[in-house]
């Protein structure tokens, strides 16, 4: 019952609005309420039957007693009447006397009142009202000889409230003068009292029984629900990683069976998880061993290649070219190895974020400076569009730099020597960098695929930079590690834009990127911004794009 109070009290108004929710919110509540309802109905029915039978029994007994009493009194009166000398006295007087006698007898027992229908007027016990005798009985008695009984209400002349009673009617036969009706009125006061006592007893017992049953139901519900609840809590703890938690098993009933099954499930889960963890550990160790084992010979090869490369002028032309190829390919091999190891580190969940308060703009500037030579070689102008507000964030500078490097080299590689814009912007809780190229672009449907490992937009297209094919996949993982986003936008012929958004604080949530996902130069000034990537397209866009390439010069 405490559970009920606990559950109903908080948000009580809201819960009232949805009674079904309250109803389904607690099993004990349902059990208790059902028990309460059912036992109340049973108790009402039982009480009703009990009262009816008791009333019947008591009334029947009283009726018989009344009849017997009346018969005796009638007989006595009849005999007195017959013995009376009717000649010497008035019938009325005799009847009055008789009536008084009978009344006295009745009064002495306190059992009945008497009404005698005399020849002239009614003679009756003091206080009792003659109207207490129902007309029906009067007419019955007037019609024939005999004794009748009927329930009635006994009225009083002194103003006390009427009481229910029994009226017994009979007649006295006075020799020669005729029949006189005599009525005995038996008040049922004591019977009513008895019945009231019985009723009170029934109600009290019923109420107590209902309450007791409810309490029993609560107890039983608790006995059933508590283990279930414990099981639920344990399951919750298991789910949140406390794999050592187990349920207590008591006895051998269904609940114990449930506990045993749950414990079995938990230990199986634990075994599986530990196996997976072990696998992950093995994987990590393997990765780190591969790393070490491959790196040492690679270092030797690299240094040897460098020595050969340095000396290439003294070599035969073929050997010299071979030395050159060896030198460059070792670099590529190293990059590939590094990226593979990095990816497997992410896969093993071994990547660790080392954040520090960093100015993202500074990282961008540094990376652009580092890429400047490469960009100039390919004839690609790089432009940074500076932010309107400071762009410091708690990030891992090594990883952010790596993302930037990947995005910028990627843009240069696919940018068709056209200008590349690098936007930096921040808002309340996030910092974003967007790298926009005007190169070959890609289909809208490929925006996800570009992050796939070793994916190529056009397999026939030769690589000019010799990227590993893992750059964007690693960048995506790096962004995720920051709980940030990395979005790709592209259209064939319109170029592409990659947008990185990271929260300003570690573990923060990015709600909105400070930069749009669709390149800004595709949004006409004065026109509403396009509703989505699909709103951009068609022949008009090309013209718009040219216009905007010009206007985008302004902020530079």
């Amino acid at each position: 019952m405490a559970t009920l109070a606990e559950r109903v009290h908080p948000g009580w108004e809201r819960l009232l609005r949805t009674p079904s929710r309250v109803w389904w919110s607690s099993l004990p509540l349902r059990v208790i309420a059902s028990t309460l309802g059912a036992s109340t109905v049973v108790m009402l029915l039982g009480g009703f039957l009990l009262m009816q039978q008791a009333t019947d029994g008591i009334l029947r007994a009283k009726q018989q007693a009344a009849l017997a009493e009346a018969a005796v009194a009638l007989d006595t009166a009849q005999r007195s009447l017959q013995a009376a000398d009717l000649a010497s006295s008035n019938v009325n007087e005799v009847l009055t006397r008789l009536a008084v006698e009978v009344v006295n007898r009745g009064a002495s027992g306190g059992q009945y009142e008497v009404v005698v229908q005399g020849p002239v007027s009614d003679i009756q016990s003091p206080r009792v009202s003659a109207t207490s005798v129902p007309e029906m009985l009067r007419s019955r008695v007037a019609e024939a000889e005999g004794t009748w009984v009927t329930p009635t209400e006994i009225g009083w002349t002194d103003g006390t409230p009427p009481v229910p009673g029994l009226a017994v009617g009979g007649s006295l036969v006075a020799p020669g003068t005729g029949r006189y009706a005599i009525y005995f009125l038996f008040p049922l006061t004591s019977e009513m009292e008895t019945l009231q006592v019985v009723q009170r007893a029934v109600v009290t017992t019923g109420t107590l029984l209902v309450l007791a049953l409810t309490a029993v139901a609560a107890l039983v519900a608790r006995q059933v629900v508590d283990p279930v609840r414990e099981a639920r809590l344990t399951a919750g703890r298991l789910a949140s990683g406390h794999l050592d938690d187990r349920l207590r098993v008591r006895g051998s009933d269904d609940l114990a069976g449930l506990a045993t099954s749950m414990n079995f499930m938990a230990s199986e889960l634990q075994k599986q998880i530990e196996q997976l963890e072990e696998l992950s550990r093995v994987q990590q160790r393997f990765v780190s061993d591969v790393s070490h084992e491959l790196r040492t010979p690679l270092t030797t090869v690299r240094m040897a290649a460098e020595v050969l490369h340095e000396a290439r002028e003294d070599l035969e032309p073929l050997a010299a070219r071979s030395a050159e190829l060896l030198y460059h390919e070792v670099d590529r091999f190293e990059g590939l190895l590094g990226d593979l190891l990095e990816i497997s580190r992410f896969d093993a969940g071994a990547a660790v974020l080392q954040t520090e308060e960093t100015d993202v703009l500074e990282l961008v500037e540094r990376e652009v400076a580092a890429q400047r030579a490469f960009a100039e070689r390919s004839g690609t102008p790089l432009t940074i569009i500076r932010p309107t507000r400071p762009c410091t964030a708690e990030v891992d500078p090594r990883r952010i730099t790596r993302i930037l490097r990947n995005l910028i080299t990627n843009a240069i590689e696919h940018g068709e020597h056209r200008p590349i814009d690098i936007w930096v912007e921040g808002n309340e809780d996030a910092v974003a960098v967007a790298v926009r190229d005007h190169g070959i672009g890609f289909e809208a449907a490929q925006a996800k695929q570009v992050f796939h490992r070793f994916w190529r937009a056009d397999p026939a297209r030769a690589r000019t930079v010799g990227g590993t094919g893992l750059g964007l996949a690693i960048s995506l993982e790096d962004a995720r590690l920051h709980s940030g986003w990395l979005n790709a936008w592209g259209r064939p012929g319109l170029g592409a834009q990659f947008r990185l958004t990271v929260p300003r604080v570690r573990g923060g949530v990015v709600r909105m990127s400070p930069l749009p996902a669709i390149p800004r130069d595709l949004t006409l000034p004065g026109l509403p911004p396009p509703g989505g990537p699909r709103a951009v397209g068609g022949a008009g866009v090309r013209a718009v794009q040219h216009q905007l390439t010009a206007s985008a010069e302004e902020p530079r």
Partner: protein
Amino acid sequence: MSDAGRVSETGRGSDPERTGQRMRVLVVDDDAALAEMLQIVLRQEGFEPIWVGQGDAALAAFREHQPDLVLLDVMLPGRDGVDVCRDIRAESGVPVVMLTARSDTIDVVAGLEAGADDYVAKPFKAKELVARIRTRLRRRPQAEDADVLQIGDLTISVEGHSVRRDGSEIALTPLEFDLLLALAKNPRRVFSREVLLEQVWGYRHAADTRLVNVHVQRLRSKVERDPERPEIVVTVRGIGYKAGG
């Protein structure tokens, strides 16, 4: 360091004596091919390499040959590279450059905390390695103006490569001395870790800032009265370090 007294002696004394002579580099690596390649490159660059393939033989070779610099692999048979580094530091301040295969693991920090001055991650370029070695062997051109600098209650003699507090000398490795000197030369300037990496370690691009953090801790443990509350090398939150006092 307990044997700090000897540290400064060896670390400083060996340098000028060998001018005109080939610098000796002790290569401790178990990979024969890499060791040979390293020796080829080092010889080409004008050094005199000595090779030891076992971790447990490294200290004996170090004592015997008195090298000017030690190239130390982390994974070694016999004795772990980090332990070898600690052994060498216990008796000398000679520059130690670790060769690590796993730049992102605790190996690096363990090596630096054991006293290594710098590390090079495999696979490195020969030029990169040689640049690192030269930086560690290069003696900084002396400051023209001041020979004696003051930082807090420390007196730094630039010429004599010594640091004194109340007349008694505090033994520092050459790297720690360079680090302290860099801060002391510009007492009002706040140095970012990147700037220190460039000035003290000779890195042109941003490198591992753990180098700075670990060596600042090591330096503090020697020069601060209470390393928990530094007064000589003060942290400027979010920026870097500056000279205190």
